[in-house]
């Protein structure tokens, strides 16, 4: 439930502060907070997004085969995840199974997307929060300590002290910052080899891909991949050193961005030996995915059954600018297995925009509130930016077993082969003690190694098909007059689902649910805050600055650890008897009084 709102001017000593728009994320996000500077804690947080485009509205009545081209445009950094997810949903609706090689090519493209996106976000967007310039300005004491602290893995990454790592992350002039930009380019080249262009793919279709599979295609990919493998052998230890240092330098830092373990992962990277895209077999082929789907609550795996995951999805309103669809037509009453489908499930959703003024007492965002119903509660799952949920779910399920990646039931073991200048290297991601900002960031780095290792496996499988002469990558299909489909994958930032209903050969309903609606969601109809709100509200303040030159770095680290993909904002209140209006009227003042 939402905590009781502290009133501005009630002597609670809160300072209202907002960050809107937040930079170094994708899209426009505002975080509005009230901060208790006496207790050094964030008391309240409201997450708001100020852009509405209306995909579910304008897709109605269109040809279903256009869906992946259109939905790709939902996101400019992970649009290919949408195209892929849409193609999965269309494959189900049309009853088509692509050739194996087509699936390996999509897996290679999507792996490159992970490698690109996590790299650029981690080093060029999040990394700046941990760079010399930022740390000097927010925690001079930590900077002093960083200069005295030897990096434990200096031998692996070449930076002698933690301060050297921080300096290398300085925007534009930092050596590692610049190297990462280059890495983001050749990983996008890898992506373009498989999916044509970035970020909106040109060669993806229902039924497979248009990519011409040749020895050259795989050689061009593999040579770049091995450069990335070598890069990861430096980057994983580098980030371990950097993040471990923060725990050491700022005791208690594990509380920053911490929330209850409520993680969702919808699974990614299909195994063509098992995936036939039928709803009937979805539970089975879902468990064969190379990232295992799962819902993890308080450290326990609730389920890794994709059918159960699907049926539990609910879209709540409460604080968002939409009219409810209660009483409107229900498109899907039962799934193809005969299970009842809830009216609040995306298959049955109607999107009815209701633009209005922002009011933090009532409606304040264009984001809805997706929740997962476990039979008793509507859980505000988060993805932790994606990687932490993927690794956690995969580790606990213990189902992934490939030459380069193995899930053990409590960890994920990643084996990278010898590369030009570095020997074979093993990394093991262990389930962390907390779901917090630093562990979300650490998981991002480990998942980069995971994606690279998996890509080695996919490239070997694909090349085997080519060498055997099985170069078909696309399969014919017909669009039925009436059908439904759903697609599940892991976008870079986490859970992604597409639900489609076809009537008279046209799209009757289409609802994509990317990770950010889960993470950036607002207080729902039960008053439960969304994950950013929840995580920021729990965040202690370690920044050394006073309210006058406060940057809110701990809040920004919290928000960015989720790898947001839209607009958010924060407002805060400072100590004293009366609420100080340091800043603009945010609409938060007057809340609750």
């Amino acid at each position, binding site marked *: 439930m939402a905590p009781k709102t502290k009133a501005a001017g009630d002597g609670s000593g809160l300072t209202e502060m*907002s*960050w*809107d*728009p937040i*930079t*170094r994320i*994708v899209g*426009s996000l*505002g975080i509005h907070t009230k901060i208790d500077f006496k207790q050094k804690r964030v008391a309240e947080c409201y997450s708001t997004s*100020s*852009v*509405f*485009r209306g995909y579910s509205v*304008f897709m109605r009545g*269109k*040809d279903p*085969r*256009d869906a992946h*081209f259109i939905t790709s445009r939902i*996101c*400019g*950094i992970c*649009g290919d995840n949408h195209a892929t997810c849409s193609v999965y949903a269309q494959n189900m609706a049309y009853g088509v199974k692509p050739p194996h090689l087509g699936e390996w090519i999509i897996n290679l493209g999507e792996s490159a997307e992970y490698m690109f996106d996590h790299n*650029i976000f981690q080093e*060029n*967007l999040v990394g700046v929060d941990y760079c010399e310039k930022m740390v000097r*300005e927010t925690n001079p004491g930590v900077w002093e300590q960083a200069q005295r602290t030897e990096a434990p893995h200096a031998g692996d990454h070449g930076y002698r002290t933690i301060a050297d790592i921080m300096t290398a992350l300085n*925007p*534009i*002039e930092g050596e590692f910052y*610049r190297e990462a*930009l280059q890495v*983001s*380019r050749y990983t*996008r*080249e890898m992506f*373009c080899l498989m999916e*044509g*262009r*970035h*970020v*909106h*793919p*040109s060669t993806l279709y229902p039924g*497979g891909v*248009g*990519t*011409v599979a040749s020895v050259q295609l795989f050689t061009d990919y593999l040579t770049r991949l091995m450069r990335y493998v070598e890069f990861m052998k430096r980057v994983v230890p580098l980030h371990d050193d950097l993040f471990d240092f923060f725990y050491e330098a700022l005791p208690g830092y594990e509380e920053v961005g911490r929330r209850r373990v409520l993680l969702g992962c919808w699974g990614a990277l299909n195994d063509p030996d098992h995936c036939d895209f039928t709803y009937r077999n979805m539970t089975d082929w879902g468990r064969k995915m190379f990232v295992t789907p799962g819902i993890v609550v308080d450290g326990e795996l609730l389920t890794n059954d994709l059918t159960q995951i699907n049926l539990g999805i609910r879209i709540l309103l409460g604080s968002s600018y939409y009219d409810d669809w209660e009483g409107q037509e229900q498109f899907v009453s039962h799934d193809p297995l005969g299970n009842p489908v809830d009216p609040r499930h995306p298959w049955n959703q109607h999107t009815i925009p209701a*633009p209005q003024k*922002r009011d933090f007492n009532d409606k304040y965002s264009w984001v809805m509130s997706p929740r997962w119903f476990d039979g008793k509660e509507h859980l505000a799952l988060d993805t932790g930016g994606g990687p932490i949920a993927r690794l956690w779910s995969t580790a606990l399920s213990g189902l992934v077993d490939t030459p380069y990646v193995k899930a053990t039931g409590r960890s994920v073991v990643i084996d990278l082969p010898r590369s030009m200048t570095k020997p074979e290297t093993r990394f093991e991601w262990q389930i962390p003690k907390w779901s917090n900002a630093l562990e979300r960031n650490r998981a991002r780095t480990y998942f980069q190694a995971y994606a690279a290792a998996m890509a080695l496996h996919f490239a070997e499988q694909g090349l085997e098909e080519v060498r055997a002469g099985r*170069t078909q990558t*696309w399969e014919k299909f017909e669009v039925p007059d009436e059908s439904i489909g759903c697609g599940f994958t892991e976008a870079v930032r986490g859970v992604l689902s597409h639900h489609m209903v076809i009537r008279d050969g046209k799209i009757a309903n289409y609802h994509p649910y990317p990770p950010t609606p889960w993470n950036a969601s607002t207080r729902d109809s039960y008053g439960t805050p969304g994950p950013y709100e929840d995580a920021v509200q729990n965040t202690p303040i370690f920044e050394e600055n006073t309210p006058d*030159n406060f*940057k809110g770095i701990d809040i*920004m680290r919290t928000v960015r650890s989720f790898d947001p993909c839209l607009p958010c*904002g924060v407002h805060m209140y400072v100590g004293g008897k009366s609420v100080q209006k340091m*800043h*603009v*009227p*945010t609409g938060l003042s007057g809340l609750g009084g």
Partner: protein
Amino acid sequence: MGAAPTTETGSRGAADAPSAGDESPIHVLWINAGLSCDGDSVSLTAASQPSIEEIATSALPGLPKVAIHWPLIDFDSGPVQGADTFIEWFFKGERGELDPFVLVIEGSIPNEAIKPEGYWCGFGDDPETGQPITTSEWIDRLADKALAVVAIGTCATYGGIHAMAGNPTGAMGVPDYLGWDWTSKADIPIVCVPGCPIKPDNFAETLTYLLYQAVGAAPMIPLDDQLRPTWLFGSTVHEGCDRAGFYEQGQFATTYDAPTCSVKLGCWGPVVKCNVPKRGWMNGIGGCPNVGGICIACTMPGFPDKFMPFMDEPPGAKVSVTASATYGKVIRRLRGITARTVDHEPKWRHRGEQLTSGYPSPW
């Protein structure tokens, strides 16, 4: 990129208070909060000719100093009205404290007039009301003070995907909003760089051109009637597509994985102005029809409605395809004969004691 290495491109005040002898920078104010996916911002980070770090550090000869205020990678991050506020740069622009600046708009412009209240898209908050400032209002506040207004991506240029039939927001491009004849105070028309997303180097190149123009090193940027840079958008996809040879020979793909011409499968390349197949997507790699992806015409003002359903054959292609299929068959047969001839070496390349190349040997 408020954290570029020099103080001129730094984030706190130095930029608009040039010290003596210091060249003041050209500011770039970037609004990504149209109806947008940020795909054009992301795409620009893939550019290598030139790269963003080369632009930010003026690494090409003659480029002026720049201070780019770009949400995607900006160092500045608030809080609002604090010491380190990103949005403050836009208020400075409005107050005339940044001169010159180039205004970049990403995303289409919704029609905020069609509803009783609220906003379709906003960028920062209005200190007076606490409500978001709409993107169209920012254009009203800033456009007339800008050296140039640049629309990045097909949404900002022509409306794009978010202006599709049936959309709820009444979205349009920047020229629809400001007027197609609009010119800046420096007499520069709106510069449109379409693409969904932009091809990375296309935008990097256009921005570089404008920076050269701003310091008097280049003449007025040449634009066509749809306000596109002519050197980038003067040719069609088909004219630069390496599968056009198959078209001429009447070899048309019937499956999406075939290496021949994909016109019958939905490729609109023959009538679309775009340089992607010619230039590759990035670093010469990738593309659209050249690598098996039908051209859905994402650079065009008519996109997407005039090209849907994307996977159907363009109606206009039927006639020419039929003609090419007939004529192409003859051409292919004749070429086949020639190809067999040229596929064999001349007969004087051989071992043995006789030289038969035609050289009269003096020995």
